[in-house]
């Protein structure tokens, strides 16, 4: 503003009390959001910690440096991390498809359909992910026979199914909220133009929900990715399981902290851009509907 409290307002009735408390932050371009001073400092700190911690411990245990060992194990750990990413993508895909369907059923005009969809949603949304994983591992047979062909269900496939269940439930809630947030006028004008309910959903309502659901959906993906190490508990060889294997193979206590810190950095580097992009999208879409 060009004038302060001590000066007379340029316009009569233009009072400081009417001004916004503080101006909205200027929207930064996406790349500046991703690579700004905060991100950089967090990364530097993480790397420094990873390097310094083993350096302190090194006097006690002779042999290769912790850094060299991390480097040596990197290809193996990368494969494990790739597995985590694969599991997260598959769970997300299955959960999204099921969740969108379930969300649509939650706003069905038929009361029983609505209620069943609601119960399913609430059940899986309020269950611990690890317990769901255990259930899937235990309940799903290791192979299913369909028309004489045996379809195997290895542990990681069961884990994908287990993780897709909470994703489905969250997605269902997001969809329900998004569909209900579309003004009723959209339904009415579609109805008066002769669109059936199904056509209205497909052609008019669902396309408009995408923008509203997208930020939550991406956030859910980041959360899901960070939850994938749970699969190591049910015997899938993900990055966590491989890290434990590497640690026991090396048998060095001083490696514990740097090794896990190293894995944390990987998850951070994968998930942080997603959450930054999410926040950027949220801001972008929050202004106009």
């Amino acid at each position, binding site marked *: 503003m060009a004038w302060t409290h001590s000066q007379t307002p340029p316009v009569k009735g233009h009072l400081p009390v009417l001004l916004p408390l503080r101006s909205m932050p200027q929207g930064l371009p996406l790349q500046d959001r991703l690579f700004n001073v905060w991100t950089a400092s967090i990364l530097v700190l993480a790397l420094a910690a990873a390097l310094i911690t083993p350096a302190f411990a090194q006097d006690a245990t002779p042999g290769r440096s912790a850094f060299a060992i991390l480097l040596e194990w990197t290809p193996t750990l990368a494969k494990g991390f790739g597995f985590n990413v694969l599991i997260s993508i598959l769970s997300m895909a299955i959960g999204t498809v099921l969740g969108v369907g379930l969300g649509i059923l939650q706003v069905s005009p038929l009361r029983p359909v609505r209620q069943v969809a609601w119960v399913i949603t609430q059940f899986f949304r309020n269950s611990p992910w690890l317990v769901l994983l255990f259930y899937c591992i235990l309940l799903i047979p290791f192979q299913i026979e369909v028309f004489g062909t045996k379809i195997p269900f290895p542990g990681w496939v069961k884990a994908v199914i287990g993780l897709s269940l909470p994703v489905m439930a969250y997605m269902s809630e997001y969809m329900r909220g998004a569909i209900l947030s579309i*003004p009723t*006028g*959209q339904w*009415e*004008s*579609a*109805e*008066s*133009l*002769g*669109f*059936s309910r199904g*056509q209205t959903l497909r*052609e*008019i309502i669902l*396309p*408009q929900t995408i923008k509203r659901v997208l930020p939550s959906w991406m956030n859910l993906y980041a959360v899901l990715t960070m939850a994938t190490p749970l699969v190591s508990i049910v015997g899938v060889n993900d990055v966590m399981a491989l890290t434990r294997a590497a640690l026991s193979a090396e048998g060095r206590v001083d490696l514990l902290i740097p090794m896990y810190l190293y894995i944390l950095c990987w998850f951070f580097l994968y998930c942080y851009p997603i959450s930054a992009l999410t926040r950027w999208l949220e801001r972008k879409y929050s202004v*106009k*509907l």
Partner: protein
Amino acid sequence: MSWTEDQPIVSLKDVHKSFGEVKVLRGVSMDIQKGEVICIIGPSGSGKSTLIRCINALNDIQSGSITVEGIEVSDPKLDKLALRKKVGMVFQQYNLFPHRTVLQNVMMAPIKVLGQNKAEVEQRARDLIRKVRLEGKEDAYPGELSGGQQQRVAIARSLAMSPDVMLFDEVTAALDPETVKEVLNTIKDLAADGMTCILVTHEMGFAREIADCVYFTDRGVIVESGPPATFFDQATDPRTREFLSQVL
């Protein structure tokens, strides 16, 4: 029941409608002939909007009968699509589809609902957009248009279904004063082309100019009706006179 053009195109007989305990319509009857322009005026909460929403079955009625070209609207086995092919509706809040361009908004219903040929529909849609004087805006999104422009797109979108009756529910109430006129002119053009129009409106000057018959509703009943000249200058019912003295 077959309908011939000498019978009323829209006919309401003793229509009752309530939302829960609230009685919104308490015995409304009116006959509208093909090509007539009807304006419904009245204080807010008098049931004007509900009345015209009942005509295209957006609201159901508790008793009485509504027919449009012989189609019984309150029939539980009503073929809603058949009704909506005949009745077009324009809303106060335009309700355009924000994710589609102007041209797509106009083309959508004939293609998706009636299954008409895309090229033919596009030709007709472009003609309609020209008719509501929005040529050049075909590829704009609703959010990029002014309220008056959006409302004219809504009119074109409704006309694309080639209805016989158009319902206008306070279509200028959300508009800036200077854009009201462009929408009213569009409606005037339509009326001049012989379209049967039923308007709920607060534009008294417009009602006086364009209407064949003005209806005044209050508390769910039609208090008074007549051609605009007699209605506005020689209203007999005290409620009508009080209302007119407040708005004129």
